[in-house]
């Protein structure tokens, strides 16, 4: 039981709904790790919520073997009724819209990245800035550099790239989502296995390559292409709904499935919108609750009072509903489950609630939404 204590503090007692900030603030995986044990507010979360250190029990799977390396926490999410597990890679508060820097990808004459078995001879991508830049964001505009005679030493700095001769062909590509992370930080899982904390289905992890920033090696997570939409000039943000409640006199972010925008794989940049469960209960006179199968008592412990009634055995195998919120949690034991449940499992269902329960915050976040393994 002892290992659960810090977990419970992190997941239930310490996630504050963010107070408005006069300052422009940004937190990346570097800060998540550096401030892991600090009781500070990162846009309504505590640093420990974003990242699990090696040896810590997994956030939503406390009975599974501890993570073997530092990793971003896998959160439960749902979008248009479909599970959408995600990690949070960056958080901004009262901050201008994120900028898009170039990421340079050297290619040989065939348009490919040369392969090598020796890491020291690898041709790496290049970022112009690291996370300590005011103008860092995890969104990058891919620019391929088709370079005759390419070697691992051709490009190490932005100056190398910009001084490249005219024989180098520059090809602009898609926007990519590549948050720079501290060395050794991946996604929190048991061994090489990543699982959706809700459905327990296996997830496809992002790759974790290396790159150069001004001659220095950095590590990043590659979530792939076209993870965000633009209006031509700016990245387009979409609302993501996080459930909050009063606990011990404070507003906390509940560890239940956040409601993500439609097409979550294309909406990595989200605006945090808080959904006040207490206000919802006052309006509907029914306390909302999250679905937790009876076979997962450890998860029920994590959620505490916010877990709905224990489902009947007949309703215990619909794993995809795990951690989703229903306005009428009594449906968890009903014979017509899940059809009788009023799920808050889509942006439309949350927007249909009274506006009194929603509050748009000054917090933005980047979500690395994960895909299920086939």
């Amino acid at each position, binding site marked *: 039981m002892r290992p659960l204590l810090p977990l419970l503090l992190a997941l239930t007692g310490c996630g504050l709904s963010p107070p408005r900030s006069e300052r422009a603030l940004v937190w990346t995986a570097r800060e998540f790790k550096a401030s892991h044990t600090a009781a500070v507010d990162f846009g309504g979360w505590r640093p420990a919520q974003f990242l699990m250190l090696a040896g810590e029990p997994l956030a939503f799977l406390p009975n599974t073997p501890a993570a073997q390396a530092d990793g971003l926490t896998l959160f439960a999410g749902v979008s248009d009724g479909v599970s959408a597990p995600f990690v949070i890679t960056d958080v901004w508060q009262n901050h*201008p819209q994120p*900028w*898009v*820097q170039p990421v340079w990808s050297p290619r040989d004459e065939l348009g490919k990245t040369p392969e090598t078995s020796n890491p020291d001879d690898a041709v790496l991508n290049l970022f112009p800035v*690291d996370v300590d830049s*005011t103008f860092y964001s995890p969104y990058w505009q891919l620019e391929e550099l088709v370079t005759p005679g390419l070697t691992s030493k051709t490009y190490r700095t932005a100056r190398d790239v910009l001084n490249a001769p005219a024989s180098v062909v520059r090809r602009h590509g898609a926007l990519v989502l590549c948050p720079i992370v501290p060395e050794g930080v991946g996604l929190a899982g048991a061994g090489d296995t990543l699982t959706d904390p809700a459905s327990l289905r296996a997830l496809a992890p992002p790759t974790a390559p290396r790159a150069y920033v001004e001659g220095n090696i950095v590590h990043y997570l590659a979530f792939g292409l076209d993870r965000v939409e633009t209006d031509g000039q700016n990245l387009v943000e979409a609302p993501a709904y996080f459930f909050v409640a009063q606990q011990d006199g404070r507003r906390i972010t509940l560890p239940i499935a956040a409601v993500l925008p439609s097409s979550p794989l294309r909406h990595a940049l989200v605006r945090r919108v808080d959904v006040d469960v207490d206000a919802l209960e006052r309006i509907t006179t029914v306390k909302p609750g999250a679905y937790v199968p009876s076979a997962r008592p450890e998860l029920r412990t994590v959620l505490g009072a916010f877990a709905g009634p224990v489902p009947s055995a007949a309703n215990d195998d619909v794993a995809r509903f795990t951690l989703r919120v229903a306005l009428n949690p009594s449906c968890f034991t009903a014979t017509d489950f899940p059809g009788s449940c009023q799920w808050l499992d889509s942006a439309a269902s949350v927007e249909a609630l009274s506006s009194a329960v929603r509050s748009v915050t000054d917090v933005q976040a980047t979500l690395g939404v994960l895909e299920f393994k086939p």
Partner: protein
Amino acid sequence: MTRALLFSLLLSTAAFAEDVAVDDPGDGYTPDEAQEETLRLTGYVDVGFSKVTGNGSSFLDADTRVPLDYGNDAFAPAVNSRGEVASTDSKGRFTNGFLPRSVGIGSTPSFLINTTSADVRFQPRGVPIFLFARVQVMPRLLPTGDLTRLELQQAFGRVSPFKNHELALFLGRFDSVFGIEYLENEANLRSGITPSLIARYTTGHGLGAKAFYRFQLPALWSAVSFNFAATNNGTRIEALVPVDASLTGNFVGSGRIGYELNLQHLQVKLGASGLYGPRNDQRTPTSRQLALAGDLRVNAYGLSVSGEFLYLHDEKGLTPGKITGQGLGELATEFTVFGGWGRLGYTLPWKTTALTGVTFYGRYDRRHAQFAGFPEVQTDRFTVGTRVDLYDFVALKLEALFNRELAGAPNVDNDVYTSSAVFTW
């Protein structure tokens, strides 16, 4: 060919001009008081002709980093004594308030009215008060249209309370007190044409209060001076930091302590400067700026050697927004710069009624500057030029600037060939 034609034209124009006495700029920290009339009008017109290589800016087309002005030195291709550059056209790419003003000519050779400057000086007889105002007009055509500017560059009242002490108290908008390069802000006073690579940090005009005190040490042929100011903005040029209002409610303190040795054939001046206070491009007083500088000037037998070095650090801005004299940026980034310049000049030891001075000079500038999280941009510049003075009221100047990017910034073709004819009245 075109430049040669301009030079001939200017020479011939000067030959027909009347001989008009002008003020001795002296130390330049303040205009000289009127000795005869209580109200005087003075000024100058600076006409330039410039050509910059490349596209006129320091920006490469292939550079898509943001902000564009953090990874290059946009101030390098300066064409006139105001430090204005041929172009700051980013072609739509994002910049964040670290830009000089532009004359908008790009790489096209062009005549320019760099500055038309008019001064009004008033000193009532028998009263230790002096009033001064300087208004300047800069006709500019930029790609976005006519952006002619009218600027009240200086406007102050000065009180000299003691007849036997060189103490002066200023209130208003006045010259910087930091370093020595501000002494040559005006084209008619500057030996060459363009300011150094660090002038942007030291030569801005301040709005506030200033005190100057100098005492002589006759036995040592020396003097020690103190020049201190408390202003809204500090000493950066107005393109970078707004002057006309304090954004924080706290002032920026700046000052210089100077020593000078005045022998018959040798003059040596040394100074140390400092600055501390809020960075006035943020509305929070807790983001501060600090600068330190040292300077040296030696003059002997027509030979002059001068130099200045600077260290400056801006703390990170805490709140969104960055307010400059040219508009709004998005964030004020932590910033550090170290740099300096050295100049060697030689004035020919002979003059005639028409030809009142011929000076050749060369200057080396170096600047290492870094916005936090961006590469340190290391640049240097070689400047060579000549100045010919005619009848004491016309100055003809030719100058070439060879800019180099040493590290952090891409190599860019942005050398400058510029000329200036300054008519003083």
